[in-house]
């Protein structure tokens, strides 16, 4: 049942090296259900707490230099009184074909064994090209070396590097947590990871359980199942970056049935 008129994308997909991530141990990915997401921002703060994101101050916000690996974008539709507000959490999509990876001259960003798009801070020289190449604009640059007012620095997470001025940073899917769980699994005579055992800070905190994290290589994982939901889509899919984050679009019931 070959479809003769298949899209270029489809053709490309099948000529592409099969199982992009098979060479890696996992293909970590996330499913974000916009019908559950309320835009409350718990994930944003959770991320800030977990990953040593600096307190940049109002001036930096004004300059457009906030540091939020995970931001919530809001879009208005319609006019009063039928106005609608929609939220979409935007974080690094850990693309299979990440544009940022090809441009970095020093390999500071690349795909690691977990199939993550990793940023190696201490290798970064700060050309900022990755941020330009990223269509999701989820890469954030350290315009200065941030300091914490005493004794706030005591909260800093020892498992995450504190970045200095001049380096790029972004969502890592909380790689330190993935490591920790893998480490544990290894101690327990190398058992395989359980689905849902690894949870990035945002996923863990989400009060509405809108975020699901897991391994797309494992067909039984929650994310693999949700991926086939008919609401599933990927943001800016036509750019062919093949992101690892699947969004489930929000349900818009026909209002006629209800008053």
């Amino acid at each position, binding site marked *: 049942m070959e479809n003769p008129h298949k899209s270029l994308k489809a053709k490309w997909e099948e000529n592409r090296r099969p199982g992009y991530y098979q060479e890696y141990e996992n293909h970590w990915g996330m499913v974000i259900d916009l019908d559950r997401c309320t835009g409350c921002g718990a994930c944003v703060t959770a991320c800030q707490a977990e990953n040593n994101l600096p307190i940049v101050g109002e001036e*930096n916000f004004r*300059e*457009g*230099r*906030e540091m939020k690996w995970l*931001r919530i*974008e*809001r*879009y208005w539709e319609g006019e009063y009184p039928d106005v609608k507000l929609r939220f979409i959490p*935007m974080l690094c999509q850990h693309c299979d074909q990440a*544009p940022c990876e*090809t*441009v*970095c*001259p*020093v*390999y500071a960003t690349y795909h690691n064994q977990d199939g993550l798009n990793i940023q190696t801070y201490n*290798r*970064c*020289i*700060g*050309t*900022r*090209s990755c*941020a*330009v*190449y990223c*269509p*999701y*604009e989820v890469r*954030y*640059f*350290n*315009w*200065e*070396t941030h300091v914490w007012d005493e004794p706030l620095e005591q909260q800093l997470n020892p498992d995450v590097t504190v970045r200095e*001025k*001049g*380096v*790029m940073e972004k969502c890592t899917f909380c790689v330190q947590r993935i490591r920790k769980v893998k480490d544990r699994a290894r101690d327990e005579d190398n058992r395989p990871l359980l689905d849902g055992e690894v949870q990035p800070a945002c996923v863990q905190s989400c009060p509405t359980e809108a975020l699901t994290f897991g391994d797309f290589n494992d067909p039984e994982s929650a994310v693999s199942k949700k991926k086939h939901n008919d609401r599933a889509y990927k943001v*800016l899919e036509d*750019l062919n970056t093949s992101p690892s984050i699947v969004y489930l679009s929000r349900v818009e019931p026909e209002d006629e049935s209800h008053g």
Partner: protein
Amino acid sequence: MAEAGKSLAYHARHEKSWVTATAEQDNPPTFAEVNEDVVRSIVETGPGYWWILGVTVVLTFLCFFVPWFYQLEVGLQASGMNHPVVWGTYLANFIFFIGLSHSGTLLSAVLHITNSSWRKAIYRSAEAMTLFSLMTAAMFVMVHVGRVWFVHWSTPYPNQMGLWPNFRSPLMFDVMAITTYLTASWVFIYMGSIPDFAAVRDRTSGWRKKFFTIWAMGWRGTHREWHHLSQAYTFFAVFVIPLAVSVHSIVSWDFAMSIVPGLHQTIFAPYFVCGAIYSGTAGIVTLMWVLRRAFKNFDRYILPIHFDNLGKLLLVLSLIWTYINICEIFTGWYSGSSGEMEMLKFRMFGFYAPLYWEMIAFCAFLPLLLISKKIRRNLTAMLWISIAINIGMLTERFIIVATSLPRQYLPDAWGFYFPSTVEFLITFGSFGIFLTLFLLFVKFVPSISIYEVKETLPEPRPKGEN
């Protein structure tokens, strides 16, 4: 020297152009006068020179290095860049200076292998311009990156970490291309100057003599040496041309290989190359005008015909440039994609619209004046047009960066960029660097090729013999 002149003259047939060149003036300078004039430009230094040099040096220090060190201290927050506009003025200037560097060497090389002798009076300083604008551009890479103290990581060299740069990265190609081009241009200009170093060596004394002795590398002007020189020179001329083209194509890929609306353009490579040669040629015109003014008797070598020829070239380039611009806008509009449309809207009618239209006026319309020979021969007009063109080109580089990045795919992440004081200062100061280098150049290198000019002159008559 005279014989030397003949020997190379023998290799390059130029009688025709010689006629055109000499037709300009009733009494062409004799060989002796050439030597005197050029050597004078080196040894005789009036207070005016010192003043200008002083000013440029101070300007370079205050406007470039002081702000830069400040930026190194506090980080790039000193610039106006932000999220999502992470590239700004620095990169724009980088491209501009790379552009300026074109046509110096490129033009000289092309004209050399096409035996167009009118190049001979101007090519030396043109090549110098290439060299120095490349250096300035390189400085901007340093200013641009976040951690310049690790910038060497972008070059492939064996290290204990066992790491290599990313050979897929256009920025990586950049580093390669620019260093190669810089080296090649350096060798090219140096090689071409050896006989002149020798000439100056023989006419100066004191430390200059020592200095030029070193640079002349014991040039004795034997037939064999001339032979080697002319062959090597021609080889390099051929070698440099594809290099020059590649350099700016690669620079353009830094942009074109991204998927940012407004940067993701297949036409960018030819666009940048053409733009580069365009601004470069304009740069040469400005430069010639200055040299002609600065040094006594140079108006005997830099002739209106040179301006005329360059004027024609400029006209052609401006037409190509305009054409490519139209293509770019059309493809953007024809794609109908929201991203492209919003970008174009912002570029042509947004905050930076005045700059955009200024660019169009300066680079697309103004040069059309060059269609008239009168204007091409009117040096002042040429000066102003050439300056206008380079202003236009500088704005073009800026607009490419500053109007594309703020209008990317996710509307919620749209932003805005305006350069900070530091950025303005450094931009200003960078011209200081360029000028300083050039001012030093005219005192250490014959800024007009003595021997090649001689080729364009009539054989010395007995009475002119010295």
